[in-house]
């Protein structure tokens, strides 16, 4: 502890110094509090999403209190030991709470990779068991920074707090505004603290204030880091298309899915898929819902998926050809059980296939898929028990999820204990009652709540997210799957998949069955929008929007042995349905066709849209036709010109100068979303005000102003004699300012004579002098009115001699 030695000071001086140093010390500790708050608010944001807020609060308070107590009792070495033990205990706690935690400890290489990914902008939300992680992260920096802060080692306190905040700057969780606050506060801890250490007076710390203001201002005004300069180190990220494309939002973010506002659709070709059946070409899935987006928890730690146990499984073989260089994902139908490719493939925690290197145009891979066959054999035989790990991981919801989402869900579903039935009910509810629209701003607040109660419209991400949220309120495990819709059918079994086919849907976990896909997005408007984009692109003829036909596979045989779980019969039945699709679709909506066995119930469920199903009596609930059928011109796809305009008004105005300060955290940062310019404007105004204020003080403006005020607007005294005293005092000060100072021992009379020069005092001076003398030495009290008159007289005297 730095000992302030004060024996060179005495008495009042020492007390005055101590008052100043105490004040500076409190300012420094206040700054430390701000630093602490910046990184803690990220941790509390995390626990707000994944739970564990109470525990985090407890360990944080405990660590802070321990730091303060230790500062008075423990030497730095002891504190380091305490922090080390805390770190060790925290690590052990975390490891044992993570599935396969011990493996985690052994795999040093993967740990380093994970941390590198985190520090390159991968949100900490993606960490497995993030609630425990938050509770193990917080104590060490809180303890150490407050230990050193209370001890007066401000540089260390600031460095430790700053490092914790910097960690979240690097994970991208701390928005630019809060990051700036943290930096300024760290500088404040050091600047003010060390001034206190140096027994400085408050005024002497004004240079610190000035520098802080300059830092604040410069950080707002000067963007050294260009916006969108790079990407986090994450496997499986990066697809083509503009940064605002739907595809990029869904498939470009790696472990983090940020929901964009008004996404665009890119009509250029990505893949050609050869498959006997249409399907959703799944890329990956997300398990953790933040309320405003999705995160895939830490790579390499998949929950054991027991896989489909039902008999109702069919095997499908498909091939995919990449049509573009640099693609980092390998879409397949769910669930791939074998892959044949010329490059190494790994699997994401949620089952997505990840190529070791980006694909090149023309690369082909072959996938064998096993699909739970719910449509053909009816509702699967669903067990009752979820595996604990599945339930824990896929029923998470942010604490901030509004209650009315759950309330609405209970109205929609009939029996929460039947997840399959519940999923169908929610899916149908969304299909019927909500509109498809790409023209929606980025989320602000809980997406499901916004969709359900405010906007009533959205695109696939919104529909899927809403459905998952609703299911999770009933503790039904569900996750967000992303990938491509089947695309444009070609001759044979080929499907051309374009960027605009990017899609998101829902996977629901059914006990003893596995993950089953549901899609609450209305397909007709979805397809209409894509069709019009494609038509437009074809007219313009820009970009690569067509694919060559896939050459015949010949007698390709899958090189991998696979368990034969599906029956040949089921496979051919499905293939038969799909080959007859056009034919069958004509039968849609006609109850008679159903009766005449032109179409079976199962076939209708596959090929017909909900409206037709209802007409055929296959869906019980009478539907609201306007809500379900959306004429394609009703679907609003933002016009590019319009979009850029709205984007500008939405964004931080400072963006125009290129800072882009809040762009990155806009969609995922805890401090939120959307426009925050008032806060930043406030910062700029504050900084400018501080700089101007201190500059003015340095230039003596305030002293001057106070002086001017005192001379021009004298307050009246309590009684006539003090009013006259004041008036005389002003007169004296005024003379002193013009170079005629009253000397010590000079009588008032002699002073007036000297001041008035050879002509002698004028009438007013005589009056002033005589009244002053009377007031001081006379016996008679002077009337209030006289006194006021004298005050006015002096004001007149002073003003007369000033240039106007």
């Amino acid at each position, binding site marked *: 502890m*730095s*000992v302030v*030695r004060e*024996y*060179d*000071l005495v008495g009042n001086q020492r007390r005055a110094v101590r008052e100043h140093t105490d004040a500076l010390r409190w300012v420094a500790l206040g700054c430390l509090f701000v630093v602490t708050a910046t990184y803690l608010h990220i941790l509390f944001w995390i626990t707000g999403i994944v739970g564990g807020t109470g525990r985090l609060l407890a360990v944080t308070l405990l660590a802070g209190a321990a730091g303060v107590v230790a500062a008075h009792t423990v030497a730095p070495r002891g504190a380091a030991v305490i922090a080390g033990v805390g770190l060790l205990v925290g690590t052990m706690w975390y490891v044992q709470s993570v599935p396969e935690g011990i493996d985690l400890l052994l795999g040093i290489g993967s740990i380093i990779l994970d941390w590198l990914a985190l*520090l*390159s*902008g991968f949100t900490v939300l993606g960490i497995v068991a993030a609630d425990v992680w938050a509770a193990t992260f917080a104590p060490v920096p809180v303890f150490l920074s407050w230990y050193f802060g209370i001890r007066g080692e401000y*540089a260390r306190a600031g460095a430790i707090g700053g490092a914790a905040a*910097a960690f979240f*700057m*690097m994970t*991208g969780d*701390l*928005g*630019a505004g*809060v*990051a*700036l606050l*943290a*930096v*300024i506060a760290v*500088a404040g801890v*050091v*600047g003010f603290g*060390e*001034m206190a*250490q*140096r*027994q*400085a*007076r408050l005024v*002497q*710390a004004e*240079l*610190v204030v000035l*520098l802080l203001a*300059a*830092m604040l201002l*410069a*950080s707002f005004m*000067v*963007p*050294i*880091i*260009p*916006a*969108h*300069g*790079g*990407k*986090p*180190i994450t496997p499986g990220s990066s697809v083509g298309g503009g940064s605002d494309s739907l595809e990029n939002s869904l498939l470009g973010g790696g472990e983090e899915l940020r929901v964009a506002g008004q996404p665009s659709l890119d009509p250029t070709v990505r893949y050609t898929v050869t498959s006997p059946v249409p399907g959703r070409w799944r890329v990956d899935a997300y398990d953790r819902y933040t309320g405003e987006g999705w995160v895939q928890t830490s790579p390499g730690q998949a929950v054991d998926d027991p896989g489909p146990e039902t008999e109702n499984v069919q095997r499908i073989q498909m091939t995919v050809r990449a049509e573009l260089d640099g693609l980092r994902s390998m879409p397949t139908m769910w669930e791939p059980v074998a892959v044949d490719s010329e490059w190494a493939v790994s699997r994401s925690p949620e089952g997505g296939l990840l190529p070791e290197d980006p694909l090149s145009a023309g690369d082909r891979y072959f996938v064998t898929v096993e699909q739970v066959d719910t449509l053909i054999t009816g509702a699967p035989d669903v067990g009752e028990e979820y595996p604990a790990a599945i339930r824990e991981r896929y029923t998470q919801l942010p604490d901030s999820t509004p209650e009315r989402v759950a309330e609405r869900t209970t109205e929609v579903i009939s029996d929460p204990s039947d997840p399959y039935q519940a999923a169908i009910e929610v899916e149908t509810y969304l299909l019927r009652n909500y509109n498809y629209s790409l023209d929606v701003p980025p989320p602000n607040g809980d997406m499901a709540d916004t969709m359900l109660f405010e906007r009533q419209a959205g695109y696939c991400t919104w529909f899927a997210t809403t459905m998952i949220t609703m299911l999770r309120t009933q503790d039904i495990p569900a996750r967000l799957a992303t990938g491509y819709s089947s695309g444009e059918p070609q001759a044979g079994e080929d499907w051309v998949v374009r960027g605009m086919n990017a899609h998101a849907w829902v996977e629901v976990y059914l006990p003893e069955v596995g993950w089953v896909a549901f899609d609450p997005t209305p397909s007709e408007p979805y397809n209409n929008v894509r069709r019009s984009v494609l038509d437009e692109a074809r007219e313009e003829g820009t970009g690569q929007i067509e694919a060559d036909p896939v050459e015949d596979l010949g007698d390709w045989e899958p090189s991998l042995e696979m368990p034969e779980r599906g029956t040949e019969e089921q496979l051919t039945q499905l293939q038969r349905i799909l080959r007859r699709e056009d034919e069958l679709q004509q039968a849609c909506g006609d109850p008679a066709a159903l009766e005449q066995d032109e179409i079976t119930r199962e076939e209708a469920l596959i090929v017909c849209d909900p409206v037709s199903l209802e007409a055929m009596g296959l869906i019980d609930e009478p539907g609201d036709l306007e809500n379900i059928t959306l004429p394609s011109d009703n679907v609003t796809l933002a016009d590019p010109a319009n979009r850029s305009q709205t984007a500008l008004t939405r964004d931080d105005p400072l963006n125009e100068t290129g*800072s*882009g*300060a809040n*762009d*990155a*955290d806009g969609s995922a940062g805890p401090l939120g979303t959307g426009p925050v310019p008032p806060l930043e404007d406030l910062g700029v105004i504050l900084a400018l005000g501080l700089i101007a204020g201190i500059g003015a003080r340095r230039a003596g403006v305030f002293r001057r102003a106070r002086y001017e005020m005192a001379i021009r607007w004298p307050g009246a005294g309590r009684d006539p004699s003090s009013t006259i005293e004041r008036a005389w005092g002003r007169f004296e000060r005024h003379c002193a300012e013009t170079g005629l100072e009253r000397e010590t021992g000079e009588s008032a009379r002699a002073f007036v004579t000297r001041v008035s020069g050879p002509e002698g005092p004028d009438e007013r001076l005589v009056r002033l002098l005589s009244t002053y003398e009377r007031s001081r030495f006379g016996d008679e009290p002077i009337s209030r009115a006289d006194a006021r008159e004298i005050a006015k007289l002096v004001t007149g005297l002073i003003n007369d001699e000033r240039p106007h």
Partner: protein
Amino acid sequence: MNLTRRGRGVVWVAGFAFLWALVFGLESLNAVVVSAVVALGIGGLWIHRVDAPTVERFAPQPGHAGNQRLVRFQLRADGSPRATIVDQLPPGVEAVAEDNRLRRVLDGRTIGYSVIPEERGIHQLGPLEVEITDPFGLVATRYELDATTELVTYPRVYELGGLSGIRISDIGGSLRERNEFDRVREYERGDPLRDIHWRSTAKHPEDLIVKEFIARTDANRTRILAECEQGGADAMAMAAASVAITLMNDGIDVGLTVADETIAVESGQNHRARILETLASTEGGYPTDQGTAGTIRVHAGGNGDVTVTIGTNSMPFERLRRRDPARAGTTRRDQSAVAADGGWPQ
């Protein structure tokens, strides 16, 4: 003007943050980079403009070796910058704080710190090294201010309980009984405080009254002759000072002869200071004037063994340091306190 260690650290952090942010597009690191540049830039400019501080030093009070002493000076520079001050200390003089670095603002107020000189001598303090830094301690500029002062350090002295067992009469003087009371008179400068007659003083509040003992005669005067072989000067000075102080405290006037200097037999505070100062700086050796009978001879060998010879009695200095049987009642704490601060008012 140069970067401090912290300044270099900030440069590294800012550089790393810049590259990292550039590669991974982390805009929130902008605040780190810009703030660092601003702090370094403005700090550097400000330091560039700072003038050399002016200094005024005060000579510290003389004192005994091993005693804590206060060193004071004033530093002033425009804008009252924060600074780290290092006063250059000679070997054997240690600052009391764990390090010798004083962190202050240079606004002209008196800056003080404590030192403990381990050895006697006239130690030179200074020059002052002043490192002025910007408000965050990132950029520094150093000034060496040629302001030195002397720290006069007397030898350590020990209470010589054994001395009262020796009959000064053996050497021509005598140890006077303190209660051979003659009369009272007004206090004069140099009178020992222990001679103040408090009861009389209480009756005459405007004056201090001291007891006058029987007339000072030759019996109350003696001379100390201190000599040493090569390397024994410190031991000699310590022993001679202890003997001189013990005698003077007992009211005996003492003169001193060392190798190169002779001080007449006198009394009073100034005289006491002169003796101590001489013993602080002497380099030892054998005086040419070997004195007369009635001289107390202090002899130090090259190995530091000291012998004190009074008349015909010779004894090692160590034996004189033993506790005074007459003061057996005093507590151990009193004794150590006496030993620690030299035992006598200056």
